[in-house]
């Protein structure tokens, strides 16, 4: 924590005059190959870009999937399905709407949550959209998000204390709803409501102020 504070200090003192958003702090090599967007190269079917994607994002995908899928073998299947989604949907990626990490994270969550639904005796549930149907470009300005790391943290910090605590337990500690209920002593309905409304509130904060869907936008 001390180091993070120090880095923020450095930003304030020394780097802020660059006008940069350093919060993502991603190496150029992560997002680009020879100055070209990694996912754009994946969309073109370049094997080297796909290999690189696997190396960079497999730990993230595995980590997310494992939160939802306890069985190791099933989790491996879900990870593989997520990457198939990625190869199919890379052409729909729009860097002005989401970072690579958020995009990959979204695909991983979809696959993982779908898997848990199928496993939980709810055959009627409609699956979430396939990655192939994901089209960030068609979402237009409504989907524009500031998903950079520090912005997300700042938005989280603005949530009411009781909601933030549940978010930390769920997203950081990886607790399930029943575990949060046991930990906090809150009724399940309250936990669900706080998470849902908190997510909506965070979405509103992360949306640029000039987004037509932002409730804080004048005349929207």
């Amino acid at each position: 924590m001390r180091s993070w504070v120090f880095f923020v200090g450095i930003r304030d003192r020394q780097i802020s005059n660059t006008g940069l958003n350093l919060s993502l702090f991603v190496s150029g090599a992560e997002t680009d190959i020879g100055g070209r967007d990694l996912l754009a190269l994946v969309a073109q079917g370049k094997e080297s870009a796909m290999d690189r994607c696997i190396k960079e994002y497999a730990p993230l995908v595995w980590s997310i999937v494992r939160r939802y899928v306890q069985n190791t073998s099933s989790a491996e299947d879900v990870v593989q399905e997520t990457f198939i989604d990625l190869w199919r949907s890379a052409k729909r990626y729009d860097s002005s709407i989401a970072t690579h990490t958020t995009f990959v994270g979204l695909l991983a969550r979809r696959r993982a949550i779908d898997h848990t639904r199928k496993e939980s005796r709810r055959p009627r549930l409609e699956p979430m959209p396939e990655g192939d149907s994901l089209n960030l470009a068609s979402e237009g300005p409504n989907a524009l998000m500031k998903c950079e790391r520090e912005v997300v943290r700042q938005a989280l910090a603005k949530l009411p204390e009781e909601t933030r605590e549940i978010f930390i337990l769920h997203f950081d500690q990886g607790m399930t709803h029943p575990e949060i209920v046991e930990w906090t002593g809150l009724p399940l309905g309250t936990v669900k409501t706080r998470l849902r409304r908190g997510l909506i509130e965070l979405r509103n904060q992360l949306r640029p102020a000039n987004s037509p869907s932002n409730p804080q936008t004048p005349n929207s």
Partner: protein
Amino acid sequence: MTDQEIISRFEELDAGRILGDLDTGEMDEWEELARDPRCQSDLALELTAAALEAEFQDTNKIELPPGLLEELEKGTADFVVEKPSKKVEETVGEIPLWRKILSDKDTAWAIAALFAILFVAQTFVSDPSTSTPGPPSTQVSPEEASKTLVAEAKDLIRAPFEGGGDYKGMSGEVVWSDERQEGYMSLTNLPVNDPKSKQYQLWIVDPTRDEKPVDGGVFDIGLAEGTTVIPIRNPLVIRDPKAFVITLEQPGGVVVSKQEIVVAAANS
């Protein structure tokens, strides 16, 4: 319910769907409302959940199951349109052959023994006066190269490093030339690192190139005293660096720094 109430209810249910916590009754309600033209799922809500999810994952500590990476690579087969160049493929193709040979214990020992004999023979038999020296070494030490850069570069940038936290005692500077795409760091009193445990990594901030800092390479400090000169290895063209930041990372460096340990920064 008013239109706004219906839309709000759908939004809350949609958040539940994205969080994966709808019960059966709520799912029925969501499905019914989803058919209502006034209610539309908002991708931004799902992106928010994904950003949160990704934010809290510490991927540096993740151990993948054995064989998963290989399986993922196999899974690209149906989507690959362009393979790496032939030259690379040939190089890659040679590795299994060598591995095959060396994986045979007897063969490996025989080769090792042969090299040992050749080495001993060369050491004791060859006449130094008749041996043909190789071309004079053209390798210049980083110290010398740095001095040359300082002396010759017309667009030289010099910036002092400032350590923070546990590294306040360090000092140093960075020299850089955009024209030459060459630069060096001179670092003093930076603690010796164990490369098997942690490595230093440089990040270059160039607002003209990208919003994101460029990986300037990992490096080690092997000397407890004195000054170490480290060449900057920029994989991408740097046009106008505004800052150089050193972090301490896992061996081999990272592509996404969590900035947990920021060692020093130099603002140009």
